[in-house]
């Protein structure tokens, strides 16, 4: 998934902030993951400008699904 995330991060850099955490190594990431009640990795949480969760995807998801969610955030 990493190449997909890297590519999308570059493509959406002007509109969406990507915050990528390795929850094995980042305590902040692990805490945040628990805050969202996420149980599995990878989990992608899409948050709109007002701070509300707009959607989430879990697992090895298709790039098209990611794009669809990111476009909805714009």
């Amino acid at each position, binding site marked *: 998934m990493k190449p997909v995330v890297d590519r999308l991060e570059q493509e959406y850099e002007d509109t*969406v902030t990507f915050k990528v955490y390795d929850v094995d190594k980042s305590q902040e990431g692990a805490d945040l993951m628990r805050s969202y009640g996420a149980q599995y990795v990878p989990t992608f949480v899409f948050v709109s400008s007002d701070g509300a969760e707009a959607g989430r995807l879990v697992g090895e998801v298709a790039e098209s699904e990611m794009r669809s969610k990111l476009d909805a955030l714009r």
Partner: protein
Amino acid sequence: MGHKQLVVWAIAAVVVIGVGVLLFSPAGGGAQDVSPERSAELVAEGVRVIDVRTPGEYEMSHIERAENVPMNMLAHESMEWDRDEPVLVYCTTGARSSDAIRYLADQGFTDVYHLAAGIIAYQGAIVSGADEVEIAEMPEDVVAGDGPVLYVFSTDW
């Protein structure tokens, strides 16, 4: 043809058919996809359960009784396993475990079950490390961000 000859021919036919079945059955054992519901039944029946995700993922949550054997350890660990013992294999969504069941079948494991939809679809008992930890407060910058944010929670890619 006498009665004895008939019996001899019948025995010969059974032997030939038996040998044929053995020769032409698929080599390398067998693996099959099973539904989350069937997987829960297999767990309840006491089938050996193998979680091929990373230790970090396993600690977060796993199916009860599951043993953690990450993909990079599977070849080494499975050398000691009984190839005729039924085993249920899973990961998060079924991607990594597809490779694992193929490997086990190639190694001659005869009874490999695959939770093809992954643990995210599993409806049985899950042991969660997060149960013992209080839900953390949502950080300020998450509540009021400057724009849309995508949070990616992963382990080793």
